[in-house]
């Protein structure tokens, strides 16, 4: 029992240990930011590596907490993303006053996500979700001198409180009609009864807030713009990815009797999300806002994959999020460096960027191509697999519209590429010396973008662990 406890909770325990270590580090003698960052990055790497060893399947706490190979993979993806973000924020945190607090907040949030992903019970799910959200709102305020940053935090806390309210209402209705909160037992009590559908709709609205699907996306752009780049990338990659990871089993298992309903909901939401996200992304000049809207559109594509309700759909969602981690973080990595060292965040500032920073230009270009879904980058494979899974339902119009929207998204990604390579600028961003840590993370991201797609075993492995309705 005790060994089982330790093995199944392995990844959570490692993170908890790191949190305690950091607390002790805080209590101890003053250290320079550089040495703290080195220690943290090393610990996070250990954390990532540890995730790959000695995993087992099983449940504890009376089925409240479960884990299996797919969940371990999902947590590893989040660990990887967090490590990359940490490496990338090196240039920003080097001069920050509260480095350890920053990591404490984000690690707590990550821990919450792990519990959420592993949840086998709606209560556990809710606990994990809240544990992951509240520290994030504090972290959004971490550009201490900027008013925008506090504004972002305020917006985030209010909107997530509201969405949590919806979510709780949905969960309580589910409990009311089924008398249980366990994923495994809920399906036996659900049917297409209006009350059950209402419960689902409320529940899903709460989730839609978290993944910023249209029409619950309005907080996204402001929060992304105001928050520090590191938090923005955490929000857009880790936090969104975690909710999507847990959404799939909840839909496929707990709400399985309502499959017809949620298929329709996903269908409509996916379409609207893709279109609105794209249309708003076209007009943005601030790169963080731009990536906020582009990430909304990406979520729409992921919803198409989820709506497939097949093993191929689930595999493509997990695979896409992995690809998204690499692509989005490569883009955010460059933006974070430029923002920290040159203080510029607008598309127009990037004019003539190639002349001064060829390396960073190529990185962000490859990242944008991957986000746009152009081969040979992994983004192409990710999008292709999502749509191919979605097409299995025979909804060729949905697929057609999604495919045409890829062309629209292509326009705004190319707009940035055009600014970097083709537009001339009197005063381009001057040459940026990239520190070792961010450089390493950019290398990893680019390698990931190029290899995860072409090397088919990644997708095959995820597929072998996935399941359908």
């Amino acid at each position: 029992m005790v060994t089982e406890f330790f093995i199944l909770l392995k990844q959570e325990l490692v993170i908890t240990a790191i949190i305690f270590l950091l607390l002790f580090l805080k209590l101890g003698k003053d250290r320079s930011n550089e040495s703290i960052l080195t220690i943290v990055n090393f610990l996070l790497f250990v954390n990532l590596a540890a995730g790959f060893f000695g995993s087992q399947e099983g449940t504890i706490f009376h089925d409240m907490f479960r884990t299996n190979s797919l969940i371990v993979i999902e947590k590893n993806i989040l660990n990887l993303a967090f490590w990359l973000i940490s490496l990338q924020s090196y240039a920003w945190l080097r001069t920050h006053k509260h480095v350890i607090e920053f990591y404490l907040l984000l690690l707590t949030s990550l821990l919450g996500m792990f519990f959420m992903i592993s949840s086998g019970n709606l209560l556990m799910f809710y606990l994990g979700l809240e544990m992951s959200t509240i520290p994030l709102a504090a972290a959004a305020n971490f550009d201490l001198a900027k008013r925008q940053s506090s504004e972002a935090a305020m917006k985030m806390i209010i909107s997530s409180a509201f969405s949590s309210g919806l979510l709780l209402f949905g969960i309580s209705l589910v409990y009311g009609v089924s008398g249980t909160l366990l994923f495994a037992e809920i399906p036996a009590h659900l049917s297409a009864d209006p009350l059950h559908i209402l419960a689902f709709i409320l529940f899903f609205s709460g989730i839609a807030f978290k993944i910023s699907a249209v029409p619950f996306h309005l907080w996204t752009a402001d929060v992304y713009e105001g928050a520090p780049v590191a938090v923005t990338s955490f929000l857009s990659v880790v936090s969104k990815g975690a909710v999507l990871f847990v959404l799939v089993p909840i839909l496929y298992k707990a709400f399985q009797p309502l499959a017809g309903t949620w298929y329709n909901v996903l269908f409509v939401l996916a379409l609207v999300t893709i279109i609105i996200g794209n249309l708003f992304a076209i007009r943005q000049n601030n790169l963080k806002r731009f990536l906020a809207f582009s990430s909304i559109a990406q979520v729409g594509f992921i919803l198409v994959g989820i709506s497939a309700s097949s093993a191929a759909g689930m595999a493509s969602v997990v695979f896409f999020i992995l690809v998204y981690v690499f692509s989005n973080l490569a883009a955010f990595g460059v933006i974070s460096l430029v923002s920290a060292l040159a203080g510029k965040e607008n598309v127009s500032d990037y004019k003539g960027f190639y002349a001064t920073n060829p390396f960073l230009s190529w990185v962000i270009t490859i990242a944008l191509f991957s986000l746009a879904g152009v081969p040979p980058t992994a983004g192409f494979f990710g999008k292709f697999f999502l749509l191919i899974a979605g097409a299995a339902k025979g909804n060729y119009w949905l697929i057609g519209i999604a495919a045409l929207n890829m062309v629209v998204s292509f326009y705004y990604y190319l707009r940035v590429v055009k600014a970097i390579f083709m537009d001339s600028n009197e005063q381009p961003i001057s040459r940026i010396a990239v520190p070792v840590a961010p450089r390493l993370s950019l290398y990893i991201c680019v390698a990931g973008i190029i290899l995860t797609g072409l090397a088919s075993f990644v997708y095959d492995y995820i597929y072998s662990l996935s399941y359908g309705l």
Partner: protein
Amino acid sequence: MNLSLLILLPLVTALVILFCNGLKQVRVAALVGSVAQLAVSVRLLLLYQAERTAGNRSPMLFESKQEWFSNLHINYHIGVDGISIAMILLTASVVVAGILVSWTMDKLSKEFFFLLILLSMGAYGFFISLDLFTLFFFLEVAVIPKFLLIGIWGSGKKEYSAMKLALMLMGGSALVFVGLMGVYYQTGSFDLMQIANTPIPLDVQKFFFPFAFLGFGIFAALFPFHTWVPDGHASAPTAASMFLAGISMKLGGYGCLRVATYLMPDAAHAYSWIIILLATIAIIYGAFATMMQTDLKYINAYSSVSHCGFVILGIGMLTRTSINGAVLQMVSHGLMTALFFAAIGMIYSRTHTRMVEQLGGLLKVMPFISTVFVIAGLCSLGLPGFSGFVAEMTVFMGSWQNPDGWYRFATILACASIVVTAVYILRAAGKTVMGPMDDHYATLTDATWNEKLAAAILIVGIVLIGVAPFLINQLIMPGTDTIMMQVGKAITQK
């Protein structure tokens, strides 16, 4: 022969270019790589001929198949028939010529040659793919280099043209994608040969054929989606124009034939009247639009719209000869336009203008370039002895074989466009090459060795096809027969 070599060689060349320094190293690496590729292509041709004379009748040769994403039935499946080999040879010649023409490209030379090689890799991969996923993959690989080549090294309203081209081609591939999905879910396979043996119901074909055909059609300048062609070609640097017209537009024609028509022959029959209508409009409209142009590059670009209309016309007519003609026209047009653009580039680099009215009497100062220019023009208007004549003649003959009265009317109209072609070609060539010369052109120099070599490679191809058409006919015939068998099956089923 291992066909993967055709993809690996450009890949290695591109990687080597990344590690080179300075224009001198880069261009040598690019040239060595592309000449090696040409050698491999020629060897492939010889091996193919040997196999065929030895009596190998299988539709595709040198096939190899490896599982890629087995859960989704995606394989890396490659193989060639005569049509693909003709396209590969075309690509290889245009690439060598293009690299020779850009010999003195000193602006960001490493990036320039890298992108050229990457673009050619996309084309090679496309032509040898027998799996729809791989085919689609390579089709899109070739889009980004075009965007960057035009946008960075282009002239005029280059950003606009680059964006327009990229978006229209991406739109085309989005349509292709929907078509592929339909075929995939109907047959459960991405494998071209396997799908060809699986009957697809007529209503399914009728629904998905337009997506696939239109999608590829955009690449091949199908009217009314040809608008990227003039802007894109005119703004692109010389080598990129050559690649665009010589290689990239052929991806579309090849896709229309190999994917849309071959896999969904019933729908091709059902829709042939629309295809022919659009092709005829493109041919005539393109010819008349060319008449109005004053910029040499625009002249060639609009005439490309007209000439590519013949490709679509040949495919739409669905007779053995017309499809043969379409393939011939693709090869011929590829060589000829590449030559034309090369000549225009050479003239422009010396005179710094492409406006017909500002040019004149160039024959006196640059006889070689002027001759090349005239040869390209004569081939374009279909003078016997050059490839243009052979190809267009074959298309017309094939089209006439289709007994339908309206189709014959379309054929006559298409034939008539040749007169218009003659007008604009002779006018442009006459004004540019002959006539009085402006004094400040008197000091200009003739072609350098690399330009001569580039032109020679392309001219050899044009004349070879023009004088001995049976050589290439023999090459592509078995490929056409495979496609015709499929089309014939469709007719007899009715």
